[in-house]
């Protein structure tokens, strides 16, 4: 399945939750499958922190052949014959505002100054993203979505869809998500942000004007994030206390590998892995985007306007829900999903909840655990396909 990103320009400014106004902007998106005649089979996929509109399929090289390693970030879930079957559903992936993967963001030119937006890009929220996505659906002529689906921050957008546009969502699939972030979770985000803004190359967020990139800060931000997306068990199974083996390949030599008694060298495998992940990330991700998206995570809290009463906040929802969490996910723990289930029960919404006993921590939502994928497939086959009222 070869796919080509498309761009939709919007001339009408977007009012943001902060009170600011985003002038003319563009959204980059991809679609998979075919929209049916009555436009009732559209499924919107919302992305999380470091992902994009490229949800499924492959991008093509100059000869029209699939580019190796170009598969979409949720290609194990979405595609022909997959749990979210693009032979039946018209699936839409949208890159969010503030991103660095095509939609208007801080690396683009601020029309007011002719310079890159940088730190002046307005703070965007989950609600703003949903409003922007809704405008794209208007352009595509889609009034009602058969389903909205997302994991983590994408799950927050999914939930927000059911509250902001209750009559436009028939089903909501919320994976490894939460009704808001806990203090510990905000704390991790803050450490990541401090790593970025204290990088001497950050220049108050206007590093592009200075011709630099705050790579050191981004690397550390990514390392911290990566630790929190895994579980202790998985990290121990994958790396344990193994030492870096670059200069010793055979097991016998490995076992005799001695500590080198350095404080700054890479000694353990886990160090090597985290540095590699950090290096890779800092080459393609934008630092201001990282700040913006982690802030959007921090701010999301639909119960806030209801004195913390999540049940009252969710009273507007009309969709049917499928919630999924993973037992070893400590960043978006099952307890947070159960809070959502409880609030939905109090509102007498149709809801199913699967708590998957997977070892992979938060990352599990991107992996292809069969229990997880079978539940999503069954829900689409049995419930989403039956339509229902929105």
């Amino acid at each position, binding site marked *: 399945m070869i796919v080509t990103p498309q761009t939709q320009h919007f001339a009408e400014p977007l009012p943001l939750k902060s009170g600011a106004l985003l002038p003319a902007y563009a959204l980059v998106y991809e679609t998979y499958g075919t929209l049916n005649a009555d436009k009732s089979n559209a499924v919107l996929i919302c992305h999380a922190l470091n992902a994009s509109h490229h949800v499924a399929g492959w991008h093509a090289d100059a000869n029209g052949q699939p580019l190796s390693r170009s598969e979409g970030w949720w290609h194990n879930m979405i595609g022909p014959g997959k749990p979210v079957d693009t032979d039946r559903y018209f699936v839409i992936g949208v890159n969010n505002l503030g991103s660095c993967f095509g939609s208007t963001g801080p690396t683009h030119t601020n029309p007011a100054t002719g310079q890159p937006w940088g730190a002046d890009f307005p703070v965007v929220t989950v609600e703003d993203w949903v409003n922007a996505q809704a405008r794209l659906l208007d352009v595509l002529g889609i009034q009602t979505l058969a389903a909205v689906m997302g994991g983590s921050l994408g799950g927050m957008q999914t939930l927000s869809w059911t509250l902001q546009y209750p009559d436009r969502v028939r089903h909501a699939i919320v994976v490894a998500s939460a009704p808001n972030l806990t203090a510990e979770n905000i704390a991790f985000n803050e450490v990541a942000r401090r790593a970025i803004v204290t990088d001497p190359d950050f220049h108050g967020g206007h590093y592009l004007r200075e011709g630099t990139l705050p790579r050191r800060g981004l690397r550390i931000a990514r390392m911290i994030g990566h630790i929190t997306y895994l579980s202790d068990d998985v990290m121990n199974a994958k790396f344990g206390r193994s030492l870096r083996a670059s200069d010793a390949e055979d097991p016998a030599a490995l076992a005799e590998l001695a500590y080198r008694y350095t404080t700054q060298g890479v000694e353990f495998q886990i160090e090597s892995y985290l540095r590699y992940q950090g290096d890779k990330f800092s080459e393609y991700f934008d630092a201001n985007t990282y700040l913006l998206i982690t802030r959007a995570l921090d701010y999301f809290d639909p119960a806030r306007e209801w004195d913390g009463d999540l049940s009252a906040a969710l009273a507007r929802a009309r969709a049917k829900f*499928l919630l999924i969490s993973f037992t070893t996910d400590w960043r978006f723990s099952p307890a947070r999903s*159960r809070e959502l*289930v*409880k609030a939905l*029960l*109090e509102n*007498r919404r*149709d*809801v*199913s*909840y*699967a*708590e*998957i*006993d997977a070892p992979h921590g938060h990352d599990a939502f991107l992996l292809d655990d069969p*229990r997880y994928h*079978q*539940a999503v497939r*069954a*829900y689409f*086959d*049995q*419930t989403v396909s*039956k339509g229902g009222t929105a």
Partner: protein
Amino acid sequence: MSEKTVMDSIARLVPPGSRVLDLGCGDGALLAYLQATRGCSGYGVEIDDAKVLACVKRGVNVLQLNLEGGLTMFGDDAFDVVLQIDTLQHLRNAQTMLRETARVGRIGIVAFPNFAHWPNRMAVLQGHMPVTKRLPYQWYDTPNIRVGTYRDFEVLARRNGLTIEDSFGLHEGREIRSLPNLLASTAVFRFSS
């Protein structure tokens, strides 16, 4: 416990249009049956992955929760009917769960294997724990950790201030209303608090 006659006997205890919570709902067959035949709505609670999937495949609402964690997710009188069909005997906190069932539902319906059914008594008289169609496990590997009798439940219900509105035995798909403690392999109680 999923034969149609048994489902019928239990379904008759559920007022039409009820909002139902089915604790230990298995593959969701009873909930689907109540929805189809009595216009009920509601949720099943199940811990087993395969059964949760079976429920999703049937299109019934299912919540994957461990009942040993209690029913804190559910408010007082949140449901018209709370079902515990072949569930109570698997729970360590059986008495707490009975009270919780009464708190969450206006009506509680419980069904469990009756240990005082006469073949079970015979087995014990002969010096062995019973192994029957209804209680097919050996004593050392049974998931039924709270074995009780029809009469025991009457005592437990009274002690917890529950009003038994209807009760009967079930055996081979038939309702047993005479000498159920002796003649029925399954005990069924409908109660309110």
